[in-house]
């Protein structure tokens, strides 16, 4: 007996976007959006939604029409004092100031400069694994994924190793403070102020006597004779924690989740061939990326799909929806690390690849393309392959798992499983 397939209808109640169901499984709604409302005017939240692959791609590419900043780029603004991150590069929209700040730091995360940090990533991964390797089981989120990236960043910045645990605490408070929920804000601000108090003398010191660490490099990096101010350095460090720490942490947990629960038949492929960790990373970034949405503001009226988005309207680009668009990928709802229609190698900001395949949208495209794309990929792959190499027969501890979810709208952070237990032999 065949069961009638229930195809989602056209009607979307915009309140659905605030529900825990949507935080957990937004994909049926994404499909409704793509199929019935390529432009969806959500009056409840005063925003427009774009969800198809090529529309999201188009909006990312078109910086003239879609601005990341809320305010005009030429205003004499001072950012920061009531801001968890302080002043930072993301505030400057598509302006020249954004390009200046970005150009100063972007080079630190790719190429040889990134390769210099690789041995340290190996070492930290091993240290973290050492702590649970004898237990025969691990809760991946807390014991592994959340431990590696922040320690890597702390080391990249050249902070003393004995302060690493304090740094991890600040980091957790900061991330929690990013949500709508008020209760975490005060703790977040306090952590930020403590961290800045800690970093301030380091900035002064390393500006005078720069070493090889990232903090020194950022302090003295110049582009056309311009350096970051101490406040901009601090803001950048805070941003680095969320953009480079939280996202990578979630990526690592999500990769293991998908291999244990979404596609357990492909786990062995990855264990047999550690190159496959990069594929896993790429497919994870397509199938259910850490970040599902980016916000833009229109700078002009935009005609699209027979509809018009007015000037200065809020637009949400659902890259999580674009990644599941059957117009771009075959069988998009299947997780497959051997997928032949997805560009599996390193991403780039143009979103166009020589192999003619479509890339995932998980890092964005264009002017605000993720600066840490190469680092996130390598760090995740190294940490995961290290773990896989040191254990035998990894398997889920529990047969059932409630799955990946975005955090509730009241707290900050990105998509991840809450807990992920794995058992293994050594």
């Amino acid at each position, binding site marked *: 007996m065949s069961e009638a397939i229930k195809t989602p209808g056209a*009607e*979307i*109640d*915009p*309140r659905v976007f*605030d529900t825990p169901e949507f935080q957990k499984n937004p994909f049926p709604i994404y499909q409704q959006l793509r199929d019935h409302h390529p432009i969806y*005017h*959500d*009056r*409840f*939240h*005063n*925003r427009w939604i774009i969800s198809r692959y090529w529309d999201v791609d188009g909006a990312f590419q078109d910086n003239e029409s879609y601005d990341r*900043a*809320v*305010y*005009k780029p*030429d*205003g*004499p*603004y*001072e*950012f*920061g*004092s*009531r*801001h*968890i*991150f302080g002043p930072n590069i*993301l*505030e400057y929209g598509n302006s020249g100031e954004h390009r200046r700040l970005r150009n100063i730091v972007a080079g630190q995360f790719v190429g040889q400069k990134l390769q210099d940090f690789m041995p340290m990533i190996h070492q930290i991964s091993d240290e973290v694994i050492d702590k649970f390797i004898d237990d025969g089981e691990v809760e991946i989120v807390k014991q592994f994924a959340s431990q590696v990236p922040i320690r890597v960043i702390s080391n990249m910045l050249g902070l003393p190793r004995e302060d690493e645990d304090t740094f991890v605490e600040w980091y957790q408070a900061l991330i929690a*403070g*990013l*949500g*709508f*929920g*008020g*209760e*975490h*804000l*005060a703790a*977040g601000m306090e952590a930020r102020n403590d961290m800045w108090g800690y970093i301030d003398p380091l900035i002064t010191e390393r500006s005078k006597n720069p070493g090889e660490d990232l903090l020194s490099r950022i302090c003295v990096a110049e582009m056309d004779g311009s350096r970051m101010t101490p406040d901009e350095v601090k803001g950048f460090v805070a941003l680095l924690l969320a953009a480079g720490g939280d996202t990578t942490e979630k990526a690592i947990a999500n990769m293991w989740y998908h291999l244990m629960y979404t596609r357990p038949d492909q786990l062995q492929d990855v264990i047999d061939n550690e190159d496959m960790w990069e594929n896993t990373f790429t497919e994870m970034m397509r199938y259910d990326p850490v970040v599902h949405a980016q*916000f833009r*503001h229109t700078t002009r*009226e935009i*005609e699209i799909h027979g*509809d*018009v988005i*007015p*000037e*200065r*309207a*809020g637009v949400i680009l659902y890259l999580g929806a674009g990644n599941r668009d059957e117009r771009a990928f075959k069988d998009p709802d299947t997780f497959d690390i051997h997928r032949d229609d997805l560009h599996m190698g390193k991403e780039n900001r143009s979103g166009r690849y020589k192999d003619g395949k479509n890339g995932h949208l998980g890092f964005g495209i264009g002017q605000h393309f993720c600066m840490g794309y190469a680092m996130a990929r390598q760090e995740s792959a190294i940490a995961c392959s290290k773990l896989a190499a040191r254990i035998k027969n990894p398997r889920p501890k529990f047969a059932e798992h409630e799955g990946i979810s975005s955090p509730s*709208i*009241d707290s*900050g952070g990105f998509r991840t499983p809450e807990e992920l237990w794995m058992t293994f032999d050594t």
Partner: protein
Amino acid sequence: MASVIKEDQVVGRNGVVISKRPQRSDGPPKYRTYEVYQRERVGESTEKIKPGQLISEDYRLDPYPIVAVLREHYPCYRDWLSNSYWISEYNDVTSIFTDDANFETRPKTWIYGLENPGRNLNDELPLLEAEEIFVDTQAEEIASSIASGLAQNGHGDLATGFAARFAMDLLLKSLDIPDKDAGQFTSLFWRMQRGTSWNPALREDGIKAMDELTHYLEPIVGLRKKEPGEDLISVMVQLAPDNNPVTVRDIVVTLLERDHETLHGALANLWFLLLTHPGEHEKAISDRRLMKLAYLETLRHSTPVLSAHRFAIDEVERFGRLIPEGAQLVCSAAAANRDPKIFNEPDRFIVDRRDMCQRESRGQYRADGLATGIAFGLGKPSIHPAIPEDRPRSRYALTRDTAVAASQALVSHLDNIQLAKGASPHLSALTVGEMHTCWKLPVTYSKK
């Protein structure tokens, strides 16, 4: 509300007037170097409220405790979830309403996103004049006929059987809609009004209703063009703003832009408050002047229109923060009208309040400093010159006088009106953002 589109304005396909403001040619914006709170979700986390509360079930039922938190702690609240700024102090709200250089209203046709929707004729002087004559001569009679009908039973529902019915009867009679079509017209009108909600299903239905209403009105408009009567459709078809004859679609848009909440919602709220405050009830029915005061106090205490939206025309510094171009401002009348800095004991319903004046509730102060309260009819004064002899009363004043006349008619037919036994009426909106009013108000009474 700028209604009649002027020739020199360019209107986008979705009804937004574009390129109407002067271009800024002399360098950067002219505000001080300013602390800007920008990034989504960041630095805007607020200890005492979460944005979800502003679109919650609690808000739908009783918004007052929630907006009080905004007013007392976050008078210009950046609501990231709903992508808007909530303004809640009395003086701030009024300052926005009167500042049409910086903040614009967008018509309901914009909410609908309609291409070439038609023209709103509500500010056309001949229409206002005809409306004034109509309500002055007919309103009391219509109310009396409803009240005498109610008087036969000994019990009834003042929300549905009086407030809603009176508002609709008045509209039907003013347009001279045949009695046999009353049900059909009422349903189309309501569906069209509810379509301006955020709910996409209601919007779809509203668009259909607008088309059906256009279709329904076509033959009627044709007839009235040939043989005009005294009704408002006849008045409208004879108008020719900008030398372009009025179309059926213009009439539909004019009906759409009418705030149906004003009469229906305010009347229902007035009687809800009177019946739940027996002492004030006594005062109000004792004479016409006090009934008028009760109506004004109703608009302050429990306005059916909880908030009005304005949009920033340009980036502007206000209330200690920078408001970006195009930002949506939710001006909360509910919060402002209960601002303890303006009104003593603002949560109490006091018919003969000493700290509120009786002028039009445009959210202003009288010369002696008394505040007026904020109701619908918000914003800048009428576009017509203020020479009372030469112009009709404002639509706000017409609505007020109509509501008072209707209540007086009720009082003159029914005696000893009180809540039905076991009834526990309350105010609510059908969905968040819609009219906040009393939908069931069962009463008993005796015939006078």
